[in-house]
């Protein structure tokens, strides 16, 4: 379980772009925009965030709908809550383990 959540955290925080995207959607869960629009909101180009977007969509954290001009990205609030819970649990478990080791 711990290893699984460790891997998840690694994927979520794997690059600066991913951290910026996480922060953007965490602060603005109601954001629905095109990939280019999302990139604009964190001061980057569409091509810079494509890889990170793809990974977050695979994780189920972000949702992609539409195609071509109507392609839009939004947060999956349910999955976001699940992931947040996993992270909190991971931190709690890690803290407990550190105490036990000491």
């Amino acid at each position, binding site marked *: 379980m711990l290893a699984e959540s460790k891997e998840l955290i690694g994927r979520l925080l794997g690059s600066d772009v991913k951290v910026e995207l996480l922060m953007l959607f965490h*602060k*603005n*869960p*109601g*954001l*629905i*925009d*095109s990939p280019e*629009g999302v990139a604009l*909101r964190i001061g980057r180009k569409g091509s810079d965030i494509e890889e990170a977007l793809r990974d977050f969509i695979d994780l189920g954290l972000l949702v992609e*709908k*539409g195609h071509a*001009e*109507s392609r*839009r990205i939004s947060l999956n609030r349910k999955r976001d809550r699940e992931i947040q819970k996993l992270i909190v649990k991971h931190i709690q478990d890690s803290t407990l383990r550190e105490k036990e080791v000491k």
Partner: protein
Amino acid sequence: MERVKTGINALDETIQGGLVKGDSTLIMGGPGMGKTTLGLQFIFNGATLFGDGGLYLTFEEMPDRLYRDALNFGWDLKALEEKDKARVICTSPDLLFKGGIGAVLDDPIKEVNAKRAVVDTLSHLRLFLPESKVRIEAYRLINYLKKKGLTSLLLCETSSRDGGSEADREFSFLADGVIQLQLQRERGSVLQTMTVEKMRGTGFPRQLSTFEIGGHGITVYAKPRLKMAKETSSEKVKTGVLGLDKILEGGLPKGSSTIVSGAVGTGKTVLGLQFLIEGAKLGEPGVFISYEEPESQLRRIISGLNWDISGYEKKRLLKLDSLYPEDLTPEAHLLRIMRHIEEMKAKRLVFDSVSAMEHMMERDNFLDFSKRLTSILKNSQVTAILNNTSRSIGGMTITETMLSTLADNIIMLRFVEIESSMRKALIIVKVRGSDFDKHITEYAIASKGLEVIGPLEEYEGILTGTPKKTPSERFVDTILKRAREGRE
């Protein structure tokens, strides 16, 4: 017709209980006028007071900024989102229309079972769509919201704070209602005003209401309605000045309004306090509203005259309220007076002074304010003294002339120079429906307040401030002088 309350009481009252369910209302205003605050309040009140899910659609402001701004007013939108009572959706008009409105908004509306919506702002369509498409896409969005049964506020940014151009007004043809937020400048003070310009299926007064954005969001102050007083009384109310009550043949008529006009230092404030203290002695609660003197100064005057009011204050027979005219909008002042009268069950009131209030208003607005003030006082059967600081020694000032038609009674307090000394005289100009002594009477401010000395019968031209003895008095003087000379 089913109504959807905004939760802003005075606004709901103005539009017969609220917005018509399922209608779209345009909120027009310049930058910083409070459109977003009104929108957030509509959504928050909907969720917390009326159990309506709400959708806030923003094209510009990011949700985190809106959460922060709303939290400043105590509205936790994020908590509402977590409880699935509201959704703040941020998207671009471009995406909304290319992908289809339903594709973007159907899910959030369903998630919170939304009954009300805010679009912030409709003007943003202009930035993303060619001019020829703006109106049609706005129409499409409004129809989508109606189809979903949402009662909506469509925020619209006008190019100026005091109106808006023709282009700004284009959306008003599409909406069922239009509310305009504007700035009104009056003699150095700036008022925020709200006007209902259009509201289908609703009767509403075509007059400005003022509003303020405070710690709890927008508070609208609708003008109290003018009502004719039903009852008139022949009873008299003692002023607390024995000699004055004698001149007035028992006192001021109960439920009447009296203008007491005089220059600074003539004793208007003292007379007002004396009037209220007399009331308190008789068990009639009274309120002193001061726009000129801070409360500490009033208390100094009171203790200087050896009056102890603490007992009356404890028994809620007397209340002092000091504030600057600029602290509140004119409507808020009127509502505050109504609240004082209600809470204190006041029978007497002193308004010190109308001239202080006049300085912050244009002539017509001041007249309107005075009309509503006297209407409130009459309908509450409150006997009132309205002090007016006069700048002229003789004759009537413009304020006095304007107010004389509204006030039932007028008392003038004047300085007069008699034989190189400054004395004081009072003149009763008018007492509605009652007889009174028409003599010009000398008075003084003694150790226990205002005291009437007696009529100044031997002088004429007192109103000019420099009276002369009457011809008969001069004749008597001459005879006496000659007689004295003869004896010598």
